[in-house]
């Protein structure tokens, strides 16, 4: 299990964070995702065997936001 932080951009509302966390957690291999609007960051814990950074950023981008792994 690894923990990674992603910097998020284009967050327009507090509810956006819920959406992102919710979608990420539906991915197989993601243990949890926690987005902080204040810090514009998403902390995510996942199993690198099942999911990778590319897949994670893909989900975030599909929702309409952009992200950079920290």
């Amino acid at each position, binding site marked *: 299990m690894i923990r990674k932080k992603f910097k998020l951009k284009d967050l*327009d509302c*507090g*509810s*956006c964070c819920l959406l992102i966390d919710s979608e990420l957690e539906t991915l197989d291999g993601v243990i949890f995702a926690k987005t902080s609007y204040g810090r514009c960051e998403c902390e995510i814990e996942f199993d690198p065997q099942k999911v990778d950074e590319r897949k994670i950023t893909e989900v975030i981008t599909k929702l309409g936001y952009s992200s950079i792994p920290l």
Partner: protein
Amino acid sequence: MDLWLIFLTGLTVGGLTCMVVQGGLLAGAIAAHEEEKLSNVHHKRHILWPTLAFLTTKLIAYTILGFALGTLGGYFAFSDTTRIIMQLVAGLYMIAVAMELLHVHPIFKYVIIQPPKFLYKMVKSQSNSQEVFTPALLGAMTIFIPCGTTLAMETLAISTGNGLLGALVMATFTLGTIPLFLGLGVATSTLGHNFRAKFAKVASAFLIYLGATSINGVLNILGSPITFQTLAAALPIEINLTGDNGSSSTAGVGLINGVQVVDVSVFPTSYSPNRIQVKAGVPVKMNLTATGGTGCTSFFRIPQLSIVKKLSQGVTESVEFTPKSVGTLPWTCSMGMYNGVIEVI
């Protein structure tokens, strides 16, 4: 209470935040239900009915919530002071959210309240259900995931201290969120960043105005020498901020048994007359009759004399005092948004 302003705030802010999350949930609910059907064709009608059901129950749920919040506010009636503080907090919060939407400074990011995750999960699990009633149930459950502005509206509802007013506030705001939902439909969940960004600018304009009106109301109630009204009076151009069409009369004060008596009709958003002249040192009796419906004018205040009187529809209540010195004594409604003036000569 400027309901138009609340409606417009819902129209813009609601479009921004509510649609993103709620649109997504509703889309999920419709999709889950559609899977039950054998047909692959995506009829528009299949989206319309669930959306209407969703919006109807959402409106009903928020109206009831508003009523509960307003009643709660009046109950704890906390003191009048606490109510005023809540109105101030609601106003400040709205301005802060507007500052964040305009990206004025990163520090404003911290005022954006995120709904608790466990509540969102509860609502989301409902949206995954395939039951026919899901969209309707979902609509009502959205009260558990309020966004920042909705919370500011809820604070405003509590601060009205009145169940009916609270219900009006929440119902009007929710009504504002409806047109865009219907117009753009569930596709709102796929709106891009550009749309949201543009919307944010418009929304923040309304938030600033609504927030400023709340704060100004507090200033009026506290009898502050500086308010929008006094600033407008000081300007050389004529600006009417009393909330009505400016029909003021100074007639109507009669002397009965040594008391200056005047009758004032109190309407939901105005007073008639809204300007009276009385002599200093002589007792005054104002007969106030509330007609035409409830509004925040159901409370009558003369801040500088610390007078607060509750008015009931169709009943005449009287306020008595003796003005000591020459000057002006403004009067206002419970939230400080509609006023009149007593000129003491």
